[in-house]
């Protein structure tokens, strides 16, 4: 058992060929998932039971089951159903890439909407009351008062969720996609050198995690600069 450095130098460029796919999975499902989370949040805090109840059930289901099972239901399970095969979403759902995006979006949407809700709850009541006293409508209060403060409050938790989403993209390799993990698994199947290949891939993921953490750290600092100046 020895460490084969030539193999590492050989396989890193191969694995990096999949970084584009990893990024596509990450950014597309982050964008769609955040949009979904905002819709879920608005439904959840609307105060109407017929909107908030379905949201709670949705969040309960998607946070209570493994993402791998969700991916398998969408990729392997959906083609069993006639109405899906004849439905308008079939062009998306018949491709593994589309399935991965749908699964990651639905999953991350559930988590992120709970994070956003935590932020909204954290906004001082007095500020909302002040807004109401100034005659702002509920929509205006949400956009100009609640949202900017809530975003600052939930940024740290949101950055953690972006990191878990980045880790979840590796599961796309289980439905035949050749992202970085998918390529690594192919290389290991050929060379049978798991240490070299998987450890170098872990280093690549660590760098990505570090970049995400740093970017959000910078963003947090920037968004709370009005607080720091007083100190």
């Amino acid at each position, binding site marked *: *058992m020895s460490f084969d450095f030539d193999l590492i130098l050989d396989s890193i460029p191969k694995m990096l060929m999949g970084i584009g796919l990893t990024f596509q999975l990450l950014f597309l499902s982050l964008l769609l998932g955040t949009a979904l989370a905002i819709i879920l949040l608005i439904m959840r805090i609307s105060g109407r039971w017929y909107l908030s109840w379905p949201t709670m059930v949705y969040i*309960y*289901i998607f*946070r*209570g*089951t*493994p*993402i*791998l*099972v*969700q991916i*398998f*239901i969408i990729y*392997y*399970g*959906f*083609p*069993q*159903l006639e109405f899906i095969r004849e439905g308008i979403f079939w062009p998306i759902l018949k491709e593994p890439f589309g399935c991965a995006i749908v699964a990651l979006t639905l999953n991350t949407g559930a988590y992120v909407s709970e994070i956003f809700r935590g932020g909204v709850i954290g906004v001082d009541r007095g500020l909302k009351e002040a807004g109401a006293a100034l005659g702002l409508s509920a929509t205006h209060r949400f956009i100009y008062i609640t949202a900017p403060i809530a975003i600052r409050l939930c940024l740290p938790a949101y950055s953690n969720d972006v*990191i878990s989403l*980045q*880790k*979840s*993209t*590796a*599961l796309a*390799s*289980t439905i035949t996609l050749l992202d970085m*993990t998918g390529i*690594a*698994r192919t290389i*290991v199947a050929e060379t*049978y050198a*798991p*240490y070299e290949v*998987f*450890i170098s*891939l*872990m280093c690549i*993921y*660590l760098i990505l*995690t*570090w970049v995400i953490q740093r970017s959000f750290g910078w963003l947090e600092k920037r968004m709370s600069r009005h607080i720091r100046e007083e100190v």
Partner: protein
Amino acid sequence: MDAIDGWWDEFFWGSVVVVELFFVALILTVLFGLIGSAAKLSKNRVANAIASGYTIVFRGTPEILVLLLFYFGSAIALTSIAQIFDPEIKFVDFPPFWAGSFAIALIIGSYATETFRGAFLGVDPGQVEAARALGLSNLQTFIYVRIPAMWRLALPPFGNHMLSLIKDTALVAIIGLEETLFVAEKAIAYSAKPFTMYILVGVIYLGFSTVITLSVMVLEKYANKHLEVAG
């Protein structure tokens, strides 16, 4: 639903494997979390550095990679050890159950390290000083004062770690452990009803998550009993 007939016992035993995996990994997680947090809080620089490296690596890389590395890596290590004694041996398989529980426990343990560290820091220093003044040894202080005060603080985030843990057990099907997801794959090969089978797996996991959530609620009530107002 007819497709599931004849598979109920298989799914039941698959669920038993999930529960076994959960409890073995849970014990290891607590162990790794305690060791990790002790190392992070100690004044020893080497211990600090090792613990920081541990949390950075296992929180920043995809779970599936850690699992694959453990499974294939340990098989290679075992094989080369076995070949020292008997060069005839071609391949020694490491049991997926143990590779899986160690990998999952190391991952969740890295999150538990941070949780326990915060909880230990949250213990009132006055209580520890009082224990010292009473003449309790370091070990006694740890067991009778620090741990009881700390687990109340750690319980809510640790409940979330347990939920991640149960969901991560699904990944072990990838390395061939016969848990529910693996049973579903077998059943699908037989009946070609992927949607039904994977939904059943989802329902089983939802049940587990619900049980954990309720248990944590009961435990939290028990932990904070002394804080309740009488009457």
